[in-house]
Every structure is written in structure tokens, then in C-alpha cells.
């Protein structure tokens, strides 16, 4: 490589102080600076101002914590009203639609009497492991039901636990008020008004009983953190999710596959007879498949990932059935 093409003024030469006596003054000075740093870090005040370049910067994390800024966002949570226990969510699907990594899965609640949808969520699953904390869901929520939490100590050895269900997402409004007082005060009135309107359109206790569950049930321990306020207790309050969920889901998965294979076999055996309505033939299979996860979700262990997992399984099963039918059509 040559540098001859460089003009003289392109090159910066650091002029050393050649005229004076150089006897290690630079090194002595450097040692002095480092020693001053040592002294200040050891005996001086801890550094408080980021503009200051000296003093102890370290925060002894588990014991000491820096104050988290109000607008800090980590993972989404759902709010419910302290007084009534009513959730603010109306299952409008805005968050599910906007979520970039598509980790929000909502099932709308239905009026048990009429079967018509009501403005409340029956199931709400959020995959924390894939969530990218963009906060779009909180931005877009017209009812201020979904907000970004400050709790960042979410590490777990149990991966499926990170598919967080409705119960573990719920926090009382008072909790959010403690972590983001000004942000909540801006929207409080409007949100509460909207909540009252929504409650009117809900029959019975839909969208309310979750709050009751929170006060009792085991998987709901996360809700205890609101009481602790801005400094959530580490470790003890960590919710331990249902481990059995994997096994359950796996078996469901297998069942679905099995059913699909059986459907395909049946279609083959059926041969030309089935050509009239292959889709119709597949339909009952789909129903059976759909039933299995429903039964599973009703199980007392309380599978967290029920909706997300089952939905995809559902789809897979459907697809299998349709393919099998098509194969049958083409083949015989």
C-alpha cells in the first residue's frame, strides 16, 4: 500500500515534544491519573451524575437498583380495575393485529346464553419469549387495557412458561399507577369511562372473575407483585407455570396427527366414493381434532399455552385432513 497519493495536508502528524527533556513525564502523569481514579473510586462518593467521569459507577444490582424511567417498557401486561375486578380489555383484536412478531393471541368471550360475542376476552396468550417489547400493542389499545410493564426479571428455566396466559398477564390498575403515575393520570378518566360502558354490554360476570382468581390461585402469584410496587420482590414471587403443559400439548399434537393420518387412510380406502365431497368428509375430523384441545384446556392443570399451541395444531390438523382428501381425490 502506498500513501504517496496523499497530499501533505491530508496527513496529521502528532508532533512530539522533542525539544524538551523527556524522562517519562508522560508515564508518570498517566500513573497519577490512574491512581487518582483508584482513590476516588475507593474512597470518594459514588458517581451520581453521568457527566462526571470519576467515582464508582457500579450499582450493586440485586440489592441496589437504578430508578426505572416511567416510560420504560419491557413486556406487555393487562390491566383490571381494582374496585370491581373488571378487566379493561374488550378483545377488539387491535393489539393482535398490530403486533409485529404476532405473539398476541386472543379468543373473544361469548355470552353463554345467546352465544353472541361480548366485549371481553375469554383467552389471552402472549408469547413473552418472542415479544420484542416494541410497545405497539400499548400504543394502539383504544381502551388502555394493555400496558408495558417495568419488571425485567423474567428469566426462567422453563421455556413454555414464557407463553403467558390471561391470569398471569393481569395487573391491577393501582399497580400500573405506581410504576407510571403521570402516564396513567393522562388516560385514567377516559379509560375508566370506557370501562363502565363496556361493563354495561357484558352479561353476568364475564370479564370479571379473572380478578377473583388472581387473589387465590397458584399460577397467579405474579399478581402479588403489584403490591410490592416499583421494586418487585425477586425470586419468591416468580410464578412457576404448569410444567405439564408441554406433555399435554405434545400428546395433543400427536393425537391431531394421528387423526389426520387416519382421515387420510379412510379417504384412501373410501376411494371414488369419497370424491363427491372430500371437504365435507374432512369436516368431522376437524371437529374431533378441535375438541381434543378444548378438553385439554379445561383440564385442572391449566395449560398456559393452550390457545396459541392449539390453534396452530388445529390449523395443522385441518391442513392434513384437506391434503389427505385431495390426495384421495387425485389418486382414486
Amino acid at each position, binding site marked *: *500500500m*502506498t500513501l*504517496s*497519493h496523499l497530499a*501533505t495536508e491530508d*496527513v496529521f*502528524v502528532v508532533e512530539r515534544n522533542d525539544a524538551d527533556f523527556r524522562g517519562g513525564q508522560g508515564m508518570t502523569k498517566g500513573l497519577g491519573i490512574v491512581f487518582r481514579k483508584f482513590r476516588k473510586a475507593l474512597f470518594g462518593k459514588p458517581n451520581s451524575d453521568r457527566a462526571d467521569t470519576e467515582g464508582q459507577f457500579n450499582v450493586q444490582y440485586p440489592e441496589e437498583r437504578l430508578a426505572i424511567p416511567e416510560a420504560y417498557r419491557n413486556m406487555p401486561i393487562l390491566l383490571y380495575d381494582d374496585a370491581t375486578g373488571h378487566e379493561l380489555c374488550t378483545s377488539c383484536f387491535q393489539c393482535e393485529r398490530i403486533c409485529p412478531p404476532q405473539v398476541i393471541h386472543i379468543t373473544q368471550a361469548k355470552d353463554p346464553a345467546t352465544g353472541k360475542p361480548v366485549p371481553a376476552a375469554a383467552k389471552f396468550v402472549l408469547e413473552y419469549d418472542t415479544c420484542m417489547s416494541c410497545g405497539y400493542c400499548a400504543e394502539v389499545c383504544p381502551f388502555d387495557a394493555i400496558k408495558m410493564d417495568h419488571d425485567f426479571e423474567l428469566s426462567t428455566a422453563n421455556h413454555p412458561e414464557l407463553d403467558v396466559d390471561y391470569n398471569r398477564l393481569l395487573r391491577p390498575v393501582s399497580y400500573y399507577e405506581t410504576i407510571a403515575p403521570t402516564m396513567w393520570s393522562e388516560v385514567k378518566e377516559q379509560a375508566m369511562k370506557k370501562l363502565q360502558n363496556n361493563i354495561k354490554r357484558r352479561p353476568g360476570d364475564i370479564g370479571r372473575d379473572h380478578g377473583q382468581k388472581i387473589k387465590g390461585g397458584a399460577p397467579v402469584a405474579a399478581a402479588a407483585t403489584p403490591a410490592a410496587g416499583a421494586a418487585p420482590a425477586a425470586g419468591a414471587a416468580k410464578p412457576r407455570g404448569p410444567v405439564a403443559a408441554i406433555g399435554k400439548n405434545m400428546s395433543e399434537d400427536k393425537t391431531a396427527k394421528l387423526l389426520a393420518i387416519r382421515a387420510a387412510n379412510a379417504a384412501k380406502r373410501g376411494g371414488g366414493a369419497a370424491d363427491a365431497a372430500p371437504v365435507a368428509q374432512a369436516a368431522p375430523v376437524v371437529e374431533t381434532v378441535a375438541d381434543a384441545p378444548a378438553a385439554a384446556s379445561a383440564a385442572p392443570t391449566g395449560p398456559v399455552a393452550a390457545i396459541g399451541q392449539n390453534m396452530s395444531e388445529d390449523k395443522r390438523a385441518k391442513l392434513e385432513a384437506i391434503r389427505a382428501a385431495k390426495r384421495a381425490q387425485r389418486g382414486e
Partner: protein
Amino acid sequence: MNPIAIGVFIVIALLTLGSGIMVVTVRNIIHSALWLIASFIGVAALYLLMEAEFLAVVQILVYAGAVSILVLFAIMLTRQVTGEGVRVVFERWWVALLIALGLFGVIVPTLWKHGATWEEAAKLAQVGPAPVEGAANSLQVATATEIGRSFMGEYLLPFEVVSVLLLMALIGAVVIAYEERTRRRRVLTLAEELALKKRGIVEPRDAEGAVVPREAEAAVILLDSEQA
């Protein structure tokens, strides 16, 4: 001598001899050099056992620490190190045998001759107070003071001759290294290049911008040094 010292002596002597044998029988030349170091250290331990501390330390410092390392350096820098095909015995092995026997013939009678003196010295040392000044000169050869005195007094001429020999070797090494170095052209630093520019001196360069040596000879030498 107490039994421990005799036992230690036997062990160390066997180790020294064993590693000496390994030096000449092992096929891997690096291993051979390492065995040589082991035998040097064994000799140092023998010196230490004879209470010639200074000699022992110098043995470690010079032979085990420096000379053997230079041997290793030389081996690694010059030739194939894993010598699987290296022959242990050459045709002219009898020359080596003659030299070794001759050396042995010189050393053993010397030991025989001075053995009595040394025993006397050992007895004197055990008896108690240090021998008188004059006696120390002839008996305690091992201390640093005595070695220094004999280098600067009795054996001044051999000492100086050896020094001159080493100096010659040093100068020779410098000359060889310097010649090698002068042939190589130094890569100019940015500051130097800039200084040259400021003084209006521009090096001749080819189309790609590389420095063109001023003389054809220099180019040849450059290529040579690159190939080497």
C-alpha cells in the same frame, strides 16, 4: 556424609546419567534437547549436594536457562524438528568414542588426585571453625569469592582469552546480523514519508505505487530476503 545425602546423591546421579543416555538415544531431536536440560539440572543438583552453591546456581542460570534454550532455538529455526528418520549412530562414531574416552581419562585421574584434598576439606568443615585464610584458598574452591579471586589472579590469562573469544563470537554475530539487516529496506513510516515529501524527495514508484528500488542489485537482494 549422612545416609540421606548418600541416597540423594545416588538418585540424582542416576537421573543425570539416565537423561544423558536419553540425550544420545532419543530420536526426536527436541526431546533430546529437553533431556539435555534435565541432565544439566541434575548436574546442578550434584553441585548443590557438594555445597558448591554458586556453581550450582550458575549451572542452572547459564546452562539450563540460557544455553539449552539457545540450542532449542537453533534446532527449531534451522531444521526439521521431528526427526523420525534421524540416525542415532553415524559412521564416524568411533571418533566420538575416542574423544569421550580421552575426556574420561583426563577427568578420572584428576578426581583421584584431588579426592584426598577434598576429603580433608570436608573434615575441616565438619570440625568447626572456618579454616585459616591461606588454607581456604586451596580447599574451598566452590565459593563465589574464591572463584572470583582465582579468575582475577591465578587464571587471569585463560579467563581473558576466553573473554576475547566470546567477544569475537559476539562481534561476528553482530556483523552477520548487520549485513543481513542493511540489505533489507526499511518500510517508511507515514511520518517519514511525509518528512521526505516536505523536503522534496520522492521515492520512485511503479504504476501500482510500490517503491522501486534504486538499484537492480537491491531488488535482487530484496527478493532473496523474501524467499529466505
